[in-house]
């Protein structure tokens, strides 16, 4: 959990992804900029429609950005030579969400893992040994090598997915909801495993999820996304404990409490976005649901100007809200926020 100003593995600038026709398609990612530093875990949090999964897939290379720049280790990914592309493929691996669809049901574990082993430069004679060690590394028995995926539980399959990613000795893992489909008791195991692997192998991890609890456990820095835009960026502490964006505060309060007896009075979690709800073309995307805007008496600015992601004095903590400075104090006195 270091706070290194080390080199940036990924630098993303003004990333835009539109599905469908340029002008009238769906803007899944709408101008996102951030860096990923070597050795850190960056948690990307958002709900459905936030664009977080798309960002993850663009980083790995499964989708191509519509516009914007991404550079990996200093080189723009759009202009990699063949050789560099192969290197990139090896260094950046994806861990998928659905453990039941991520493994080919018609291939044995050994066959699936051998795809990567064959590419890892390990001499043939050592490959079997490498497979066994890999299985042990993810906490599985080597007798499982000759079995088929459907014989394993969700948690075991997710370990296999991790093992597959590790076959090529990557440096960066992009994990898209790796534990969401797992039982609670297994989630803890897999998270521990990820932590161990991260420490052992010095991995850089981009962790995409909707679950704030997981992001709190696992991230050094957190990026919060809403409707394709990055609304807040900061360290774990800054985001979880001193958030300056109304949406993040809303997410934090919406998460169910683990202590019974908490009152579920959440005056600001009332409206849900309806499909095709009217959005002002130039205003803040969150304005229709924003409790801060309401508390401040509907200032004009929210509807006319899209807020930029700005950092403040708190070392790198950036929020995209015109009134970010007032968010913490407003959040501390929820009684002031009336019902819609």
């Amino acid at each position, binding site marked *: 959990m270091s706070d290194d100003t080390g080199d940036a593995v990924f630098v993303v600038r003004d990333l835009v992804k539109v599905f469908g026709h340029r002008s009238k398609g769906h803007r899944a990612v709408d101008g996102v900029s951030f860096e990923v530093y070597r050795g850190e875990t960056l948690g990307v949090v958002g709900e459905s429609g936030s664009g977080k999964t798309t960002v993850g897939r663009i980083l790995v290379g499964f989708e191509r950005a519509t516009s914007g720049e991404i550079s990996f280790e200093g080189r723009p990914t759009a202009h990699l030579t063949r050789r560099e592309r192969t290197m990139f493929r090896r260094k950046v691996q*994806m861990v998928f*969400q659905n453990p039941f669809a*991520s493994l080919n049901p*018609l*291939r044995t574990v050994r066959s699936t893992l051998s795809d990567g082993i064959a590419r890892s430069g390990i001499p043939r004679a050592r490959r079997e040994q490498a497979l066994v060690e890999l299985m042990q590394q993810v906490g599985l028995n080597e007798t499982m090598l000759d079995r088929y995926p459907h014989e394993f539980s969700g948690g075991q399959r997710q370990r296999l997915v991790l093992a597959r990613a590790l076959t090529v000795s990557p440096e960066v893992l992009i994990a898209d909801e790796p534990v969401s489909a797992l039982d609670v008791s297994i989630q803890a195991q897999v998270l521990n495993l990820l932590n161990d692997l991260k420490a052992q192998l010095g991995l850089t991890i981009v962790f995409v999820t909707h679950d704030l609890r997981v992001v709190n456990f696992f991230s050094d820095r957190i990026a919060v996304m809403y409707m394709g835009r990055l609304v807040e960026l900061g360290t774990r502490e800054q985001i979880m404990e001193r958030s300056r964006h109304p949406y993040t505060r809303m997410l934090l309060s919406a998460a169910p409490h683990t202590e019974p007896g908490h009152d579920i009075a959440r005056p600001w979690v009332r409206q849900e976005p309806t499909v095709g709800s009217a959005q002002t073309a130039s205003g803040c995307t969150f304005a229709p649901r924003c409790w801060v805007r309401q508390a401040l008496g509907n200032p004009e600015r929210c509807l006319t100007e899209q807020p930029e992601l700005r950092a403040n004095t708190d070392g790198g903590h950036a929020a995209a809200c015109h009134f970010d400075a007032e968010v913490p104090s407003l959040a501390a006195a929820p009684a002031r926020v009336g019902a819609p």
Partner: protein
Amino acid sequence: MAESMLRLPRVRMRSVPAGGVRAITFRAIAGHPRALTGAILTLLAVGIAVVGSVWTPYPPLSMNTSEAFLSPSVHHLMGTDVYGRDTFSRIMAGARVSLSVAAGAAFGALIIGTVLGLCAGFFRGIVDILLTRIVDLMLAIPGLVMALGIVVLLGPSASSVTIALIAVYSWQFARIVRSAVVSVRGRPYVEAARGLGVSSGSVLFRDVFPSVMPVLVVQLATAFAWGVLDEASIGFLGLGVQPPNPSWGSLLIEGRQYIYDAPWLSIGAGIMVVLAVFGVNLLGDGLNDIVDPRSGAAK
């Protein structure tokens, strides 16, 4: 990590279920009711065809009008037809023609259609657009018309019928294979393989194609069934196997005329067609199961 490899009470280790093409063994088929039934029926049909090409109870072509329309009896297992020819002999003789035309058409269309479908589905882009348009165009032409045209060009015979049917069935295969490929290539495990840097060819062969196979097997069995019937239609129009040479299809057509007086021609030929088609379908279904490790069919 030791926490996850804990000392569980001894769990009985089931024998490793197998899968893949290597799982198709005599034992596997014998243990699978559907596959076994299908295999038996198919072998029966093939057996009749093989035997029928060298020996039949009566010469299939010899007429004896005094013996016309005899009901099935010990002497004539399936009776006789309008010219006094023994139906059973004709069925045996016709088996070889029918089966080889149907099988030839099905397999030929499989190969061509699969290649087209794989290319279109996997490589997308301009290749896909072009191929799909061609397939659509071909499918728009009525199959029988196209087949007849080809047969006329090549001259009526069993092999020209086979070629004609291949030409007609390939497009259907292509379309089905293409959509199967498109649905498989979007799956995470295919993406993961490409993410690992596996070459397209290898991904196609190891990840995409095995998942497409079940669809192919089913379509193969269906095409086989249609082959038998289409061969009959073409024969009926006088452009296929020429009378008096028998084939199941032509027997069906003949039998239609006399269905009230002597239904055993139709029934006899019909039963054979049903048996062969049913057998091939069951076998295909069973093989699909055996090849899929999830079904637990292969042990």
